């Protein structure tokens, strides 16, 4: 899966899961603020990532993830490790 495909997939499932307009999911936008994530929502973020990419992320993986761009890079890295 190339980066563009990752971006499209992520936009699709995040907008559906967190009921956010896809247009708001921009590379430099803040992931937590855009998706309005609270502590419980991070659990569901783990679930939708696993459902769509087949790997499980941990709290440590999210250290340093601020923007969607950071998140796409994390997904890229995890997919390469699979």
């Amino acid at each position, binding site marked *: 899966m190339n980066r563009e495909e990752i971006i499209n997939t992520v936009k699709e499932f995040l907008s559906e899961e967190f009921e956010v307009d896809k247009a708001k999911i921009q590379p430099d936008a803040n992931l937590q603020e855009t998706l309005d994530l609270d502590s419980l929502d991070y659990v569901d973020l783990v679930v939708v990532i696993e459902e769509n990419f087949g790997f*499980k992320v941990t709290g440590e993986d999210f250290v340093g993830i601020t923007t969607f761009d950071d998140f796409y890079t994390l997904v890229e890295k995890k997919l390469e490790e699979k």
Partner: protein
Amino acid sequence: MENRVVITGLGIYSCLGENLNEVRDSLFQGKSGIVLDEIRKEIGFRSALTGMVKDPDLTSFLSRRQRIGMHQPAMYAYMATKEAVENAGLDIDFLEKTETGLIYGNDSTAASVGETIDKIREKKDTTLVGSGAIFQNMNCTVNMNISTIFKLKGINFTLSAACASGSHSIGMGYLLIKQGLQERVICGGAQEINPTAMGSFDGLSVFSIKESTPTKASKPFDRDRDGLIPSGGAATVILESYESAIKRGAPILGELIGYGFSSNGDHLSNPNLDGQNRSLNMALKQANILADKIDYVNAHATSTPAGDSIEAQAIYDVFGDKVAVSSTKSMTGHECWMAGASEIVYSMLMMNNDFIAPNINFENPDEISAKINIIAETKQQEINYFLSNSFGFGGTNSSLIIKKFNK
């Protein structure tokens, strides 16, 4: 001084309709909500008969975070409570600034628990069940969800008492208001309708197997009854002190004047005449009225051979042969944890529209039911006082008496 306790809001989501008007019409028409659910046969049920309600689409009412902890009990309870809050003239702004309690009857969350366990076994991971599972799985799911959605600030707990849960929830709300501890309590009962919740109950072989005629299968008090039919949904009853209702100009729909209760202390599932009589007599004593004041008894009768006979005898012992009796379970099936609350809503609809809903499918009495006045066809009649019975597994009994409101 004790407070008078009035009813200011009602809401219903049941197999007879998704709101008060639909349900009133179904009751008047003697319409059954029972269907054959083929999936139950495929998964090994002895009887595939059930009441049926659809899962409501809450996306236009609630945010994702508000919905995620809800499975059937909470979803149904939301629909019933939304209607009750609206017709009580309440809104979230008011509820947030005042003290309103919530005591809701519920006694299972089987489907969500099953789905959670299946997921953990499949994934071998607990995080992957998602954040909503725990809030769906706990028996207090209705209270957790409804109290946070409606911003309630008063008493907040779930009441679990088998098929008397809904009735006791109203009884508890009544006592708290009567004693001056709460001004207003949202009460009710919820019952999930999925097969998972009812498999072990079906396993007792107490469900009707008249599968070729679903709408005729529930026959409370009839000689040829062969068992109950599970059902579900939710019903909400808003109780309020008379002073509070008057102060805010709320509609007053009726007055709750008596709550009787007892425990059989006997068998897990068999009914008990002494326990039922004690509950009925306690309700009358609390209401400070004689038995002949009661115009209508909404019976618990579920269409089981033993249960209906014991109740018919109890009604005869306490009220004699004149009082009008019907079991709305002939139309709804047994709404279990919800029944005690839904049957208050059904009886309130009758009282406020001057009719008695029929005990449909009552064709031939047995020796005991022949002694009481069972209403088999819709009857236009004024109701000034009614009593509603609820009896549950474990021998828990509850009887409520409601009076037409007079200043």
